[in-house]
């Protein structure tokens, strides 16, 4: 009679996985159309007249760009299926290695930024909602808007100016001091440093990570502030919160157990959507702080107008985004029993 929660969650995950397939397909197609079909011949577009016609023809042949478009499309999809993202025209390196080299840095940055963003967003947002229309609320709201309104790269430059150039507290760019890299396990420097007990590496990695992570984190945090505040305002005036108060539940418990917990459910979902924003921001942050992640690679390939490289990296981003949104949806279903039962 009562359906078991586990079974429904499984069904939900399965359904959600199936939905991810067309979404991925669309993203890959859009990428292909915009970057392979629209610009015409990518080799000429990228290298222009820097190479001879014969050399260009050779590169085209190597990359399979002399085949009919539909063949290119099919092999593009097949390659992606095998985890092959093609080659950069300018460097002639497979993008798979670029991604493998640089993804951990991006992951470390985005995770650290997410921690900062959630910390800022949840605390300020919840306080603003609790003290609605007081100076605390106005201050929280303004902070949220200002953080959101600051261009990431500009904020990064300003923080560099203050903390690196004026105060000399933190480095301006890079991921770790030279020759400090910890022994590679997860390739997330902070984690590896802790795992290997390499405290010098930990300190250095932390110093290098701080500015980029804070820059990216507070900007995303600005959005979270508004999000948490609005959701919290709604749960604070919900019927069950009033009912809990009518039962004489303490104010703190009402706030945390009822208002706050319920406010976080939509926040978790929207965090999934904001993850895409985090990745956008990471490109700008990495470019500003020369943080050796995928975003920096993308920035460099963009400067060089390397079409196949941009296509490969964007394809990887698409895969990553679809994967993360899947994960977030499953987490929300796990948090909120209602979603599974819909």
């Amino acid at each position, binding site marked *: 009679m009562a359906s078991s929660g586990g079974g429904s969650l499984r069904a939900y995950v399965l359904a959600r996985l199936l939905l991810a397939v067309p979404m991925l397909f669309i993203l890959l197609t859009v990428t292909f159309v915009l970057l392979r079909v629209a610009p015409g011949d990518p080799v000429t577009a990228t290298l222009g007249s820097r190479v001879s016609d014969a050399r260009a023809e050779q590169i085209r042949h190597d990359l399979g760009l002399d085949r009919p478009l539909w063949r290119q499309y099919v092999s593009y999809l097949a390659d992606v299926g095998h985890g092959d993202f093609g080659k950069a025209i300018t460097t002639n390196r497979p993008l798979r290695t670029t991604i493998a080299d640089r993804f951990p840095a991006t992951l470390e940055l985005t995770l650290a930024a997410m921690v900062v963003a959630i910390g800022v967003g949840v605390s300020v947002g919840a306080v603003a909602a609790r003290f609605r229309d007081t100076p605390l609320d106005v201050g929280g709201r303004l902070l949220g808007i200002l953080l959101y309104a600051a261009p990431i790269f500009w904020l990064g430059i300003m923080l560099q100016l203050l903390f690196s150039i004026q105060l000399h507290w933190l480095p301006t760019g890079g991921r770790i001091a030279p020759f400090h890299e910890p022994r590679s396990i997860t390739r997330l420097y902070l984690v590896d440093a802790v795992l290997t007990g390499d405290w010098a590496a930990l300190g250095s990695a932390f110093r290098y990570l701080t500015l980029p992570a804070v820059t990216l984190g507070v900007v995303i945090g600005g959005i979270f502030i508004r999000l948490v505040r609005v959701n919290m305002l709604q749960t604070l005036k919900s019927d069950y919160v009033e009912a809990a108060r009518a039962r004489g539940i*303490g104010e703190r418990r009402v706030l945390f157990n*009822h208002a706050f917990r319920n406010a976080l459910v939509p926040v978790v979902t929207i965090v999934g959507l904001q993850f895409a924003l985090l990745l956008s921001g990471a490109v700008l942050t990495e470019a500003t702080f020369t943080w050796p992640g995928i975003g920096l690679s993308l920035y460099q390939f963009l400067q060089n107008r390397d079409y196949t490289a941009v296509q490969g990296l964007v394809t990887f981003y698409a895969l990553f985004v679809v994967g993360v949104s899947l994960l977030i949806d499953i987490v929300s279903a796990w948090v909120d029993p209602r979603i599974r039962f819909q």
Partner: protein
Amino acid sequence: MSGGRSARTRTDRLKRLWRTTHPTARRLMVAGGVITGLFLLMAVFAPLVAPYGEAQYRGLPQLGRPSADHWFGTTNLRYDVFSRVVFGTRLAFQVVILSTAVAMVIGVPLGLVAGYSGRWLDRVLLLLMDAMYAFPSLLLAIVAAFALARYVGQGVPAAAISISVIYVPQYFRVVRNHTLAVREETFVEAARAMGAKRRTVVGRYVFFNVVQSVPVIFTVNAADAILTLAALGFLGYGVPIPAAEWGYDISRAIGDVANGFWWTSFFPGMFILGLVTGLTLLGEGINDIVNPLLRRRGVGVGAVVPGAVVVERAVTVTAAPVDEVSADAEDFEAAPAAAVTVDAPAVGAVGAGAPVGAPVGAPAPAGGAGVALSVRDLRVTYASARGPVVAVDGVSLDVRRGESVGLVGVCGCGKSTLGRGIVGILPGGATASGRVVVDGVELSTLPAAERRRARGEKVALIFQEPMTRLDPLQRVEDHFVETIQAHRPKVSRREADAMAATALAAMRIPLTRARNYPHEFSGGMRQRIMIALGLVLGPAVVVADEPTTSLDVIVEAQILEILDDLRRNSDMGLVLITHNLGIVAQTCDRLAVMYAGHIVEEGSVGPVFSTPRHPYTQGLLASVISLDTERLSSIPGSPPDLLDPPPGCRFAPRCPFAMVACREQVPALAPMDDGSRVACHLYPGADPRHPGRRWVPVGRRDDIHGPWLEGTLQ
């Protein structure tokens, strides 16, 4: 011809929304509007404002510090930074307006069509747009700009189109979802039922309601578009030099920073920050005003009565019974004849200032054994946009243990507010004065923490709509444990579970389901859970506010039987708030009839139903439609506006026996020989100027708009 008048009512409506918005929200919105306006002026008059051209470099110093000549300094390329940022404003507006226009032109119609037609078109478009929406927006814009760069080259159109790619899915989603919601509205069905063509339905019924959401997304997207443009510029895919573009200028200035030349990047960034902040404030302000979800009513004026209990809380005011028209419940302003009263002293009345509605000769709370609840001179004031509103005006009421008292009246008469005042949970901005004594303890003077503990322990409130009153994320059992432990911290989890099981079993909830979530229960079961939850600590008084209004008639009868058994067996006082006189007749011992914030008649169910004394009670009883009804009857007129209540008796304007005296003097509740109390000048003791005597009308008014009757004292 009608256009002008319609426009005026529309403006009036906006004005009203504006007036009822919280002052802080208004101030933030004005600030946003002013900032945005200044930037717009700067953009329009850029050539006049900027001292130099956007790409003028001859004769200017290189990397000059900010000075009188160059307020914001000069750049590496000898540009004047101030002139650059001013022209940057112009460029930003060009790109933003163009890109949002493109996005709107594509996104809005697509959303409308997909939302209204549904089916495969909707499914395909939704999948496409969702995929694009999930993708990092900046990357999307870069890819578009990258692809366009080869054909169109870089410039304002290319940048605008690249940015619009991001916002098409956003407009689409908002418009589609809104359309989907509007399509289900009854008025769209009404349009179909009148035979309107599909085109007409979409155009006249759906579209106008959907476009209202567009201004909000417009301002929000405009702010976002400026950031995206700057990011594109920073990455080298915006509008290139010599055009002045903020992001591009900042990217050129990175090298300057390392050498301490801060001004070349600082000022463009500040301009972005300023304009985006202005637009966001404006957008949030519009949203605050338009979005009803976030509106909070009657806040801000906050008249604090000295010595009164100030309740600060952010909950909505009315627990609207189903038979209230929703608009009436939503907004005091919407219904001209709505609800609520104002505490205006009876102007010109002889002896004005007498305790209004206070029971004669019963000033002290009834103490002693058997009395569960004693309310004295309770007055609850809401702050509304048009001024303070006294919803409950000096009400006194006693409930004995094991007794069930029905509190009846039409919506807006103050019965729900009275119930909430007893329990002590009033909405934000409401103030209460008077005394509430439960089980010998005066709640109204308790410190906040103890007052909180009294809720649930001494007095419980059962709400109207059980479906939304349980926390959706908590198992049913956890609600009980939480409630028990909030009041009795020493009770262990195991003991609390046992208490919960007992309470649930008493309500005939299968014990096998105690660990289920609220959404797994039906409405009637949830209401039984709510009752169990209210009773688990054994309160002396239970206030049930329309506990069955949202339930079907058979389930209603089941719940009423349960409540009736409980108050008899567990010896508690029950205050049953309802608009349904049948329920009172069937389950209550006594009843109190409320009208416009006052109790006008109070007594045992038998005598009041057989010989109602107050003309309002008579009218109310006559208007009940029951299985025995043979003739429809109604009271002419409508309840008074509580912001400006009539002087004297509040029912007088609708009363067939209204006399001149009724307009002059508020009648007091006077005891009758059968124990009832009535506040009406037709009965002796109601007029404090003439104790022991009554007014007798000369005739009867047939038309409530007719002249008031003369009356004689007897």
